[in-house]
């Protein structure tokens, strides 16, 4: 479920959250870039789920343990707390039911890591304000009618969803347009305005 053209600058941020030697499930693992990174740098026992057959076949040919599946329908088959970390990287906004998916992540993993593009970023706001059209940017290149991203949210939206499902935010990082981390001391509104991507470490 990798999103066309989305930059994966968040991968290293995700990796930083992962304890070495953990059991990791990457939901929407694409061509396996993150899993390979984690196996190499963190010696994780990694598994992946990917919706596109091409992605899965590439992963398996790379020697990764990946199955073809859909975050919306296939997470139910995983047992409770089967993994130390469950990662949903740049995929939440493409699920049909983000809340149910988030709850499954928190059930399957001891911790969940979620990264997503922030629709509250100033560029998105400005585009809608000035042009009156749904934003089409370098990072979100699809027009509204053919985008796989059907559930965009802002950082603030996501934080309130976490509250609703009883997930505790253990750590969070926002990345600006240049891929730089936004200072931890900054308030939420600042993150929500300048963060282009967000990565959350959650626990329930």
């Amino acid at each position, binding site marked *: 479920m990798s999103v066309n053209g989305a930059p994966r600058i968040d991968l290293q941020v995700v990796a930083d959250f992962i304890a070495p030697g953990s059991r990791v499930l990457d939901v929407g693992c694409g061509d396996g870039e993150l899993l390979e990174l984690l196996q190499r740098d963190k010696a994780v*026992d990694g*598994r992946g789920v990917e919706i596109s*057959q091409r992605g*899965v*076949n590439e*992963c*398996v*040919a*790379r*020697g*990764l*343990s*990946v*199955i*073809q*599946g859909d975050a919306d329908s*296939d997470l139910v*088959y*995983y*047992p409770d707390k*089967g993994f130390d970390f469950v990662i949903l990287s740049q995929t939440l906004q493409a699920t049909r039911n983000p809340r149910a998916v988030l709850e499954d992540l928190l059930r399957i993993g001891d911790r969940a890591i979620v990264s997503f593009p922030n629709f509250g970023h100033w560029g998105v706001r400005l585009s809608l304000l000035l042009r009156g059209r749904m934003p089409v940017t370098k990072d979100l290149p699809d027009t509204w009618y053919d985008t796989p991203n059907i559930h965009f949210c802002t950082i603030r939206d996501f934080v309130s969803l976490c509250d609703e499902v009883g997930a505790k935010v253990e750590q969070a990082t926002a990345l600006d347009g240049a891929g730089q981390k936004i200072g931890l001391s900054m308030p939420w509104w600042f993150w929500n305005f300048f963060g282009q991507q967000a990565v959350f470490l959650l626990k329930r």
Partner: protein
Amino acid sequence: MAATRAKAHANEADEPTSPVLRFGVDRPLKLDAGVLLSPFQIAYQTYGTLNAAKSNAVLVCHALSGDQHVANTNPVTGKPGWWEVLIGPGKIIDTDRFFVICTNVIGGCLGSTGPASTNPATGKVYGLDLPVITIRDMVRAQAMLIDHFGIDQLFSVIGGSMGGMQVLEWASSYPGRVFSALPIATGARHSSQNIAFHEVGRQAVMADPDWRGGKYIEAGVRPAKGLAVARMAAHITYLSETALQRKFGRNLQDREALTFGFDADFQIESYLRHQGITFVERFDANSYLYMTRAMDYFDLAADHGGKLAEAFTKTTTRFCVVSFTSDWLFPTEENRSIVHALNAAGASVSFVEIDTDRGHDAFLLDEPELFGAIRGFLRSAARAKGLAEL
């Protein structure tokens, strides 16, 4: 002619071209049917060399109509081994690196004890006196051969269709002895539709007057027509509608117009007749009954309280399940249910669905994506087991 062939088969059944391991009365095979098979024998082929640590063994399991001649010229047909595209020196399953073993399954007709073998108790051909054989019986016998080689753990167990059922049974029955498992185009049970097709095949065999209640070898005849019809019906299930249409369409066979008769007007008819005839030349009709029955009886979940995941509890085997989009005999959903069970059991599992219009038989063909998946899976498994790269 038919009698000569029957004799040739009988020879291959008792004294095959392949190496044979014979188990005396002191080492019976315990069958699911509740009886002991003894004495019995297993015919097998090996390729490559077993390393000193005995850690590089790959067991290949054959499908319903297959045999142990997976990567050498078949002594009965003179054709290349059924998986020579995949197995051999420098190939995906590299015999310069792995020690590949393939056995004729119990109930088969090329040297392992089966209905065409001589029953030592009577000195006559077993025929239907052989107890019904199950997939688990086949695997139990293979395990005895693996013991004979002194192999504690197989590096990989690989097979498609009925071979895939054996792979699943191996992983379930002997979890510690299977480092990696590659079940391809298979199911954890035989579906009602599949049992239905098998029943059509069996009825075709048994309706042939030359079947003689299963005692045709003694009578010096063969139920060739019945077995050929069984094979024709089955062969349709191995292909796909798209592939049939693409290959044959409504093309006529060596003629300009319809003959208004019942000769093989269409190419597809001629093709199926050919498939039927060539099969009869190499396969024993009773063995066909036993093989189809074994598949019908297979239901791994039922053996574990109805829960397939229980069949793989605490497994440490690495799995790679493969299905094909156009396979309607073992459709992707059947394979996916294996994957879900393995997930629920917390197993390490990959699942690849290959996009092809070649139907169930795609697993025997040159499918680059299949080969890519097998290569990647075995490479990472070999790394995990610490097997040296070539």
